[in-house]
C-alpha cells in the first residue's frame, strides 16, 4: 500500500505546483490586458490626479512583482483581495479620503460559487449515470440500430450550440408544456426542492452537452476489451452478455472512463457562461464576464484561479481513482 500512497502524494504535490504556475500565468495575462480600472471608472474627463489617486489606493502603481506577491500571500491566507467595482468611489472628487464600502472578493464570489457548484452537481448527477448506462447499452448492442440511434442523437446534441439547445428545451419544457420555469434566478433562502426545480432546465441543457463524450468513451473502452481472452473465457463459462460487460469489461475499462468524466465535470464548472446567461442563472460564469467588462481585476483573477483549481482538482481525483482502480497497484505482489 505504501507505494500507492507514494504515487498519490506525488500527484498531489504536482497538482499544487501546477496551481502555482497557473497563478503566475493568470496574473501575467490579466496584467497584459489593455486598459486600466481607474481610467475606466472615471471616464474620459478624469483628471490625471484623480486617476493617480485611485491607482495608488488600489495599489495599482506598485511594481507587478510586488503586486503578485501581495496577491499570492493573500490567497494563501484565504484573502482574495477587494473587489474594485464594489468599492465606493463616490467621494473621489479630487481630494483623497479613506476608501469606503469595502466589498471583499470572497464575499462576492461565495454565493455565486455555491450556485455554480449546485448546477454542476445536478447536471453531473443526471449526466454521469445516464452516459455510463447508455455507453454500456451501446456496447452491448454495438452496431445495432439502437447503438447508431444513440450515437447520432448524442453527437447531434454535442454539435449544436448551447444556446440553441437551451431555447429548444425552453420551448418544449417551459412554453409548450410548462413543467419547469424558464428563468433560473435562484437566491438565498430557497428550499432545496425549489432550487432543484429552477435549476432543472440549465442542468438538462448541460446534460445534453456533456453526455456524448462520456457515453462514447464508455462504449469505446468496453468494446476495446471485448476481444480479450478473459472476455472469451467469461462467454465460455456461460455468462450472459450484459453480465459480461458489467462484471468483466467495465472494471477493466474504468481508467479512461474516469478521466473523461473528470474532464466533463470540470467543464460543468468552468464552461457554463452561455447557459447561465440564457437562463439568467446567478453563477460564477456571469460574474466573471461582468468583471472582465469593468476590469475588476481581483474578481477576474479569483475566478480564473477557481476555474484552474477545479480542473486540477478533478484531474487529480481522476488520477487517484484510476490508480485505485488498478488491482496491480492496489494489491502488489
Amino acid at each position, binding site marked *: 500500500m505504501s507505494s500507492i500512497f507514494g504515487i498519490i502524494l506525488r500527484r498531489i504535490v504536482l497538482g499544487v505546483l501546477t496551481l502555482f504556475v497557473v497563478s503566475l500565468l493568470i496574473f501575467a495575462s490579466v496584467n497584459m490586458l489593455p486598459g486600466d480600472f481607474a481610467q475606466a471608472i472615471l471616464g474620459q474627463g478624469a483628471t490625471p490626479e484623480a486617476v493617480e489617486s485611485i491607482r495608488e489606493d488600489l495599489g495599482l502603481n506598485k511594481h507587478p512583482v510586488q503586486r503578485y506577491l501581495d496577491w499570492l500571500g493573500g490567497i494563501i491566507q484565504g484573502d482574495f483581495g477587494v473587489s474594485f467595482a464594489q468599492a465606493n468611489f463616490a467621494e473621489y472628487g479630487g481630494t483623497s479620503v479613506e476608501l469606503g464600502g469595502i466589498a471583499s472578493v470572497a464575499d462576492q464570489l461565495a454565493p455565486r460559487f455555491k450556485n455554480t457548484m449546485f448546477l454542476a452537481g445536478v447536471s453531473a448527477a443526471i449526466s454521469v449515470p445516464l452516459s455510463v448506462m447508455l455507453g454500456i447499452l451501446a456496447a452491448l448492442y454495438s452496431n445495432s440500430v439502437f447503438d447508431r440511434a444513440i450515437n447520432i442523437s448524442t453527437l447531434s446534441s454535442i454539435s449544436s450550440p448551447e444556446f440553441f439547445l437551451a431555447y429548444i428545451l425552453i420551448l418544449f419544457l417551459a412554453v409548450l408544456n410548462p413543467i419547469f420555469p424558464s428563468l433560473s434566478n435562484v437566491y438565498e433562502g430557497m428550499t432545496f426542492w425549489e432550487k432543484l426545480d429552477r435549476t432543472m432546465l440549465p442542468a438538462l441543457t448541460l446534460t445534453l452537452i456533456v453526455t456524448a463524450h462520456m457515453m462514447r468513451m464508455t462504449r469505446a473502452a468496453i468494446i476495446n476489451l471485448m476481444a480479450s481472452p*478473459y472476455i472469451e473465457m467469461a462467454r465460455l*463459462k456461460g455468462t450472459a452478455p450484459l453480465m459480461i460487460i458489467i462484471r468483466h469489461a467495465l472494471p477493466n475499462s474504468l481508467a479512461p472512463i474516469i478521466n473523461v468524466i473528470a474532464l466533463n465535470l470540470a467543464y460543468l464548472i468552468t464552461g457554463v457562461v452561455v447557459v447561465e446567461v440564457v437562463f439568467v442563472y446567478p453563477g460564477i460564469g456571469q460574474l466573471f464576464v461582468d468583471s472582465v467588462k469593468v476590469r475588476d481585476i481581483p474578481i477576474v483573477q479569483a475566478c480564473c484561479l477557481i476555474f484552474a483549481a477545479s480542473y486540477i482538482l478533478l484531474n487529480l481525483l481522476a488520477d487517484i481513482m484510476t490508480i485505485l482502480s488498478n488491482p496491480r497497484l492496489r494489491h502488489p505482489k
Partner: protein
Amino acid sequence: MDDQNLVLVKNLKIEGLADEKWIPIVNGIDLHLKKGEVLGLIGESGAGKSTIGLAAMGFTREGCRISGGEIYFDGIDLVNADAKTKRSLLGKRIAYVAQSAAAGFNPAHRIIDQHTEGPVQHRVMSVQESRNDAIELYRKLQLPSPKEIGFRYPHQVSGGQLQRAMTAMAMSCRPDMIVFDEPTTALDVTTQIEVLSAIRDIVEQFDTAAIYITHDLAVVAQMADRVKVLLKGDQIEEADTVTMLSDPQEEYTKSLWAVRTFKRPTKPMVSSTTTPIVSLKGVNASYGKTPVLENVNFNIHPGRTVAVVGESGSGKSTAARCIVGLLPPTAGDVLFNGIPLPAHYKKRTKQDLQKIQMIYQMADTALNPRKTIFEIIGRPVEFFLGLRGKEKRRRVEELMEQIEMDPMTYIDRLPSELSGGQKQRIGIARALASEPSFIICDEVTSALDQLVAEGILKLLANLQDSFNLSYMFITHDLATVRAIADEVVVMKNGEVIEQGLKDDMFQPPHHPYTELLLSSVPEMDTTWLDTLLESRQVDKTVQNH
C-alpha cells in the same frame, strides 16, 4: 445418433472472414468423443485446432461462422441451438481451459470469485459451497496453500499455478467435457510437467471427457487416448495414441514425427589463447532495485554458437540487454574483442553498434508494419554502410538472396503480406545488413512451427559458416540447443549454474538443475510422464530418509 458418443461432429465446415471475404478454414471434419475419453488434436498453426475445439463447444470466435455440418453434444444439436440453450451448457457441462491462463483470468477479480461465477450462475452451488469446493480442487491440483491462493489476484500468482487454477475453474461444475487449448504452451518445461500431471489426474479422477489441443507431439502422447492429426483445416489421420506414434500412415504425420533431426556437428574446443569476441566479466544488473543478474561470466568465441538456456525469469534476455547496452550493468564489464564496451549504447561508437546485432522472438512486432521489406532492410544498409540509391538496392537484394527469399517477389511487400517464417527471415536480413560479427538470437524460433523453425536454424547455421558469425542463442527449448549450439550456458535466477561444451552438457553427470531441465523435456513415449513422476517420487523418498 450414436448414444455412446458424448460429442459427435459430422462433416464440420467453418469459414473465416478475411478482407471482407469468407474463406474456408475447416473443411469437413468428423469427430467423436466418448464419456471419459481424451482426444488429442494436433497440427501446426493454421491447422484449425482451436477453431474445431471451440466449435465442439458450440462456440465460434468473432469473424468465424459454421457453414456446414452437424455438432451434437449429448444429443443436443449445437449448430441450431439458440444462445440461451448454449449458455446453459457452457461452463456447466462443457468447460474450457485457455492457452494463457494469465490472459484468461480477469485481472480485476480475485481468482476464487472467478471460480465461483460459473457454479453460482448455473445454480449448481451457492457461493460458499463453491468456494469450499474450489479450495478442495486447489488441493487436488497440488496448488501451494490452497486455502489462501484463491483470494489472490491473477497477477499475484505464477503462470503454472494460474494454469492449474484455471483447470480447477473448468472443473467447478463437474462438466462432462473440457476443451484444453494448448494449456502448457506458454509454460517452462519444468512447470509444464506439474500442470500436465495435475490435468491428467483430475480428468481421470472425475472421468471427464476432454479434447486436448496442442502442437507438441510429445505432450499429446502423455495426455490423449486417441490422436487426430490436422493440416490446414483437413483431417489427415486418426488412431489411438500408441499406434499413431509407432506406426503413422500418412506422409505428413511422418514428417511431423521426424522434424527433430537437424543437428550440426559440434566444433572442436577453442584454444584458451584466442580472444573471445564477446565476454561478460562479473556482470550484475538490476531493474530498479530488483537485482536480476548476479556475477555473470561467460565467453563467446568467433564463429561459434553459445546457447543460453534457462526458464523464464532466469536472466537470459537481461544478459543480452546488457551486451547490447540497453541495460547498463550495475557492476562488471562487457568486453568486445577484449576491449571493454561503454555500458550504455548511447555512449558506444557507430562501429561498436554495427558489429553487435539482434534478432527478436516476435518477428511480428519487431518489424514496422508500415514499412516495406526494402525500407526495413535498407535502413541499416544506409545508416551503417552509407549506401544509397542503386547500391543500396543491390545490397538489399543480395541480403534477401542470402536469406533465401526472392527479391523480385518480396522486396516491395509489407510485413503483413509474409508468413511467420518469412518475417523471421527478414529479421535475420536486417541484422545481417550492418555486416555484424556477433548476433544475439532471442528465442527466434519459439513462435514458429517446428518445420519452419528448422528452416530458420539451418539458415542461421549456413550464414555462420559463410560469414564467420558468432551467435548468442537465447532459448528455453533444449531440442534447439541440441541442434545448433557449440557451447551451453545454463542460467537460473540471474546466475550461471553450469557452462561448457554442448556434448559434455548432454552427457551425465549433470548439475542437478540441468538434470531437472533435461528430464523435463517431454519425450514421444506414452509412458514417459508416468516413469518420470515415479522416478522423481523415488528421489524424494530417498532424500527424505
